[in-house]
């Protein structure tokens, strides 16, 4: 078993789709009166478009694309701070490729690199550590970005740096957590959500219990899902079945990867290195209580915020989002990407205006990349 192709079997898909159709009918959902299911995770958004699942599933299901792309929810001011750090002559700024093209208020990291900053793409914070070992006379900063899936990797890297006393390594921490924004969305009176597809890889770290409040407090079903198309379809089926049956539970479709209680080593590393910030800013969602992490005082030597006096450590900075950008509304499911007046004209993947057009996980980019315009898609698919 390679745990990939097996979950892309088109024959099995026909079965799941038929079962979904049946349950949608049982619920009585239609295009006019659809069931709203939010996939929280950008990886799920990407997979939905890549495999055309939105068009394979019946019109009675409407996917709402959630805030689960760490690049998309990053406020512009964070990118500005990255650029500020990266442009110091002593700094080698290391980052995942995802963040390279995100526009800051003046420039993206890609442009800062072209302007002369020493910015290097890495696959792993371990590679940034290695760069720090090899460049003892430079300051190596890693752009720590991502949800709970990614947080352990930077926590473990900081612990490793501390063990080696690697004084020239630090992390610009922008890690965020999944449950707070979900709560914020559920508290939004305009939001109409019938259920959730839960983030599979975040859950392998934190387990399934952090979602209990969704079922127990808000009465909404949630199914933690894998990323292959069959995983997603099966999870949608499971959400629909809960709705049909009037249940609200936390279910786990991705049990091959996600243990109920998560990963203890990862959780311990996070707890050792990080602590919650009182509040953190999300692009499109604003400040959300306890939704971000910062480096604990014990590891202050590895905190780029402190080392370079930027970010929350230096007081909040106000950079307004670009004019005409509707990312916030798209991210909260209030409008579809195509509902944004900028979509496809003022905002394209070549020249993204908003963050959702930058990352291939962003809802707008996914729409554009795999469908261009609703009309064109219909045409192309015939």
């Amino acid at each position, binding site marked *: 078993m390679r745990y990939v192709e097996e979950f892309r079997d088109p024959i099995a898909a026909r079965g799941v789709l038929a079962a979904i159709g049946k349950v949608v009918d049982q619920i009585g959902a239609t295009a006019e009166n659809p069931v709203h299911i939010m996939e929280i995770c950008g990886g799920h958004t990407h997979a939905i478009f890549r495999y*055309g699942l939105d068009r394979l599933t019946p019109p009675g299901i409407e996917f709402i694309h959630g805030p689960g792309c760490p*690049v998309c929810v990053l406020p512009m001011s964070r990118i500005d701070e990255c650029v500020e750090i990266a442009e110091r002559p002593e700094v080698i700024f290391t980052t995942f*490729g995802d963040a*390279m*093209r995100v526009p800051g208020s003046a420039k993206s990291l890609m442009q800062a690199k072209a302007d002369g900053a020493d910015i290097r793409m890495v*696959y792993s914070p371990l590679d940034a550590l290695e760069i720090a070992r090899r460049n003892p006379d430079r300051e190596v900063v890693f752009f720590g970005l991502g949800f709970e899936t990614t947080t352990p990797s930077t926590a473990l890297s900081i612990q490793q740096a501390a063990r080696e006393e690697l004084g020239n390594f630090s992390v610009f921490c922008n890690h965020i957590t999944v449950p707070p924004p979900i709560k914020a969305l559920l508290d939004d009176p305009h939001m109409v959500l019938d259920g959730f597809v839960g983030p599979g890889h975040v859950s392998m770290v934190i387990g399934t219990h952090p979602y209990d409040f969704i079922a127990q407090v808000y009465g909404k079903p949630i199914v933690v899902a894998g990323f292959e198309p069959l995983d997603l379809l099966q999870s949608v089926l499971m959400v629909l079945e809960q709705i049909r049956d009037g249940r609200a539970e936390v279910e786990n479709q991705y049990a091959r990867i996600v243990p109920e209680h998560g990963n203890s080593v990862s959780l311990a590393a996070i707890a050792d290195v990080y602590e919650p910030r009182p509040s953190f800013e999300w692009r499109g969602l604003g400040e959300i209580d306890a939704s971000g992490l910062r480096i604990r005082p014990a590891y202050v030597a590895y905190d780029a915020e402190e080392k370079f006096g930027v970010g929350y450590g230096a007081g909040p900075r106000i950079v307004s989002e670009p004019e005409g950008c509707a990312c916030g509304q798209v991210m909260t499911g209030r409008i579809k990407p195509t509902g944004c007046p900028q979509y496809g004209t003022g905002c394209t993947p070549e020249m993204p205006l908003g963050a959702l057009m930058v990352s291939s996980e962003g809802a707008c980019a996914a729409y554009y990349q795999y469908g261009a315009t609703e009309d064109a898609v219909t045409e192309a*698919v015939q």
Partner: protein
Amino acid sequence: MTMERPIIPSRLRGERVTLAHGGGGKAMRDLIEEIFTGVFQPPGTEDQARLTAQALAEPGAQLAFTTDSFVVSPPVFPGGDIGKIAVCGTINDLAVGGAKPLWMSAAFIIEEGCEFELLRRIVASMQAEAEKAGVRIVTGDTKVVGRGAADKVFVTTSGVGVIPPGRDLQAGNIRPGDVALVNGVLGDHGATILAARGDMALSTDIQSDCQSLNALVEAVLHAAPNARAARDATRGGLASALNEMAETAGVAIEIDEIALPLRPEVKGVCEVLGLDPLYLANEGTLVVFVPEAEAEAALHAMRDTEAGRGAARIGLAKPGPAGRVTMRTAFGGQRLVDTLVGEQLPRIC
């Protein structure tokens, strides 16, 4: 000429190129004679080659002319080196236009500190590949720049060939119903370079597909005399080549995911880094459109050549919308295959 050279005492002191080797004096002459012209053996010593070809005088024959700079890093990688690519790439740009490549120029920009051994290897590859393809490297140039002003060595080749009377391979000729063929697996070069570069610390056994396609194109044209258009799918991968062709011809193109020849290792690299193999570079990948009636013949002819063993039928042209490329996915859906935006970046989310 043979690759073996008589062993004469080298006038090149040390192991690396210094700025003196670009200064226009004796050191430069020594470098050029020992490393370059000693192998390429261009005709004459003037700054321009003087050439005659019967084929060019034929009424209706056209001269084909192309150029490319090669900047691949690392300069030596599994399956080839920058020299081999530089010769193949220019041969291929001529060949996909239906031209028979005749002559080539080679200009080198060398970074101070580049090892003579590396240059020797590159030059030997170029000469070997040129001989194989029946092309002569007839003129050239070398420049040396300071450390940090180049990345070891850049090679720019230009090629001149002749398009026989009556031949017309241009993307504009593609019509709805035409069949798209490729000569083999996709993305090997791009995946090889990503791994060889070392930044991502990946190791694989993949090799670049770097090869000359002129014999393959001739074979296709023989089997499918009405072949419409051909491209070598280099930077930007198959997706970019198809998009360009669709736009130029004003047709839509639909390809079939299941039909795409891909090595598991290339898929592996793409999975690890979150990349799409449709956009990975190739250096010996032909995309050719032929009329449906000639498709099977072309496919068999391709498979009979060295460069076409893995040939496959991957899709077809449709009436429209003009410029649109789509893929029927293995899962049963359909998706757009747009031109890449910038470069593909490794991603984690």
